[in-house]
């Protein structure tokens, strides 16, 4: 009586019609979803192109710098009036006078103090340092003549790089019409031109844009990251292995886990304050030093590395663990022989992310004094230093036009540093993956 055939079941045609209707809706939804995704990716690529375009267009010019060719007489009367070749005297001699003499020789028609001062302003004050270094390195050149390229002033550099409007009224420019005339004359006979700017990569910071370089910040960053990597990777991986493989599951480990996750979200400046209070105030480490900076960044990167390493350890299939235990491997043998080799690529990825974050951090370094104006290139972990992102921050704050391109130039160096670091890590990771 109650056969299932009597139940109000839709016919096959009706069902198919409904399926067709819903199919159209499903395909529409899928298309929409794909469009959202494509739009998101495209806008992302757009922003990246814009970012790189801006940085490169502003910063690429930093790798070329204006140099003036001068014929300098190493006048013994000026450099070493006593003739004793005393090193202290050679160092403190008035090399500026030699540059001035060379400029007067090049433009003999210029007369009068104000005009001469404008003429001397074409050459950078760094030019005299160049002469000093040459004389100190080889005092025998005193008395001879030499034609050499010296740095031009940053205002001249900006004019050559078309970053100054010639058409602007004279009192709104930092170069007078007279100076522009001399510059054009120098350019015309080929003794003022843009040459490769080795100084940007070999100098430390300076108040003169034409002398300022990133080497100090680059070495500072490298030393800081060396400390960070050598501490945070072993500690982070060790903590992750212990927590994931050996620690008992109880309230204490739960609390630790929650706190590690929370630490990863703590603003970096807080770590800077902690570092200031702990490493500098309490332990008495030197201020502004890569050692203190590296320790602060270690605190910052530890949670990232621990979380990523734990995820990598968790991802190792349980069947491999069982196989090892079933063979009679001890827990440590299981972890060392099977789990860690399989988790290494993931742990390295965590280290890359952590290191990339550490490289880009400036806020915590400000707190421990790595924002100081440091001219000397750091030679050890306890010398005063700054880091690349802090250098970017410092230069971006300065009014001279020359520092605008240097800011972008430092960003380019920072990005290159990041790429080299990541490429190394990726190569390492692939090597570990291939072994298995």
């Amino acid at each position: 009586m109650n056969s299932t055939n009597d139940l109000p079941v839709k016919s096959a045609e009706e069902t198919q019609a409904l399926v067709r209707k819903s199919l159209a809706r499903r395909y529409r939804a899928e298309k929409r979803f794909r469009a959202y995704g494509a739009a998101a990716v495209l806008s992302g690529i757009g922003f990246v192109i814009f970012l790189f375009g801006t940085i490169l267009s502003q910063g690429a010019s930093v790798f070329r710098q204006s140099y003036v060719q001068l014929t300098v007489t190493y006048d013994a009367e000026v450099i070493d009036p006593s003739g004793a070749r005393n090193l202290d005297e050679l160092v403190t001699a008035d090399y500026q006078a030699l540059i001035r003499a060379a400029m007067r020789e090049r433009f003999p028609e210029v007369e009068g103090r104000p005009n001469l001062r404008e003429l001397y302003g074409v050459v950078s004050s760094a030019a005299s340092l160049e002469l000093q270094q040459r004389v100190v390195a080889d005092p025998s050149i005193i008395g001879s003549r030499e034609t050499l390229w010296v740095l031009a002033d940053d205002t001249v550099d900006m004019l050559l790089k078309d970053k100054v409007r010639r058409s602007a009224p004279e009192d709104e420019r930092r170069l007078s019409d007279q100076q522009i005339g001399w510059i054009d004359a120098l350019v015309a006979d080929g003794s003022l031109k843009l040459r490769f700017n080795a100084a940007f990569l070999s100098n430390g910071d300076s108040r003169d844009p034409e002398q300022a370089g990133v080497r100090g910040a680059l070495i500072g960053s490298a030393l800081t990251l060396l400390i960070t990597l050598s501490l945070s990777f072993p500690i982070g991986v060790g903590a992750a292995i212990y927590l994931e493989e050996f620690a008992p599951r109880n309230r204490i480990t739960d609390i630790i886990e929650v706190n590690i996750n929370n630490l990863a979200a703590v603003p970096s400046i807080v770590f800077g304050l902690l570092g200031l209070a702990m490493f500098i105030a309490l332990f008495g480490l030197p201020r502004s030093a890569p050692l203190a900076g590296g320790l602060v960044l270690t605190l910052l990167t530890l949670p990232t590395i621990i979380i990523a390493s734990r995820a990598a350890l968790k991802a190792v299939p349980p069947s491999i663990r069982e196989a090892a235990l079933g063979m009679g491997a001890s827990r440590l043998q299981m972890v060392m022989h099977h789990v860690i080799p399989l988790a290494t690529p993931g742990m390295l990825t965590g280290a890359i992310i952590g290191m990339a974050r550490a490289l880009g951090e400036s806020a915590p370094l400000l707190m421990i004094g790595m924002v100081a104006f440091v001219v000397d290139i750091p030679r050890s972990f306890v010398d005063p230093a700054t880091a690349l992102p802090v250098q970017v921050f410092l230069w971006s704050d300065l009014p001279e036009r020359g520092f605008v391109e240097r800011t972008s130039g430092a960003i380019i160096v920072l990005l290159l540093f990041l790429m080299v670091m990541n490429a190394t890590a990726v190569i390492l990771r692939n090597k570990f993956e291939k072994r298995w």
Partner: protein
Amino acid sequence: MNQTAIIKPVPEGTRTIGDVTVPEPVFSCRDVDVFYGDKHAIKKVNIDIGRKQVLAMIGPSGCGKSTFLRCLNRMNDTIVGARVEGLIELDGQDIHEKRQDVVQLRARVGMVFQKPNPFPKSIYENVAYGPRIHGLAGDRAELDEIVNLSLRRAGLWEEVKDRLNQPGTSLSGGQQQRLCIARAIAVNPEVILMDEPCSALDPIATARIEDLIDELRESYAICIVTHSMQQAARVSQRTAYFHLGDLIEVGETNKIFTNPQAKLTEDYITGRFG
């Protein structure tokens, strides 16, 4: 160790039908209970496992046969919240005793898992792993010999002798499972536990493994959990039927399959449920 040790008598009131004891058992289990947290997964199981024979454990899914198997080499220790009670003796020695080292126990009781799980290493390294960690080979030549012998006994040598350095995971499913068996016998265990070793394999690979089990029986005690009653009938000499954590019936395989004593056993093997 001590062959003359007095084996504890089966406690009164056991509900299991059939003879749970065998002469000179390798394993003897008395009143074994397993709990997963609050869940009582194995209830007062009494059973002996004989030497040089295959014991098949059958029963519907979730009846606790795999859980019981994992008690025998203390793999349940690795599961958080699992608790094993009762007495399990290997050669007359309590495996839960303090001086029984779990690593040594697992060297004596090998295990083959449901899904073939070779290490992501070379075929050679897979087999050499056990002898290496237990220090069974004095030098490379001896290790080569063990690997060779184990692969031969697992019937895999002819197929892999030219590619011992290729990853174990590059083999087919059936070959991988035989590799796992070779890996298990490389440490020369007394007992081999097999947890549904053929459930992921096709019939041809299954037949090979079954032949292998039959050969290995001459040297080892084998405990196999299986969902296939035909397999149990083909490879085992004794069969144990589990139902919801209870060991319902134990006996010689042909008796269990031709003349089961318990109603539940009969229903299961005649296909009325399970």
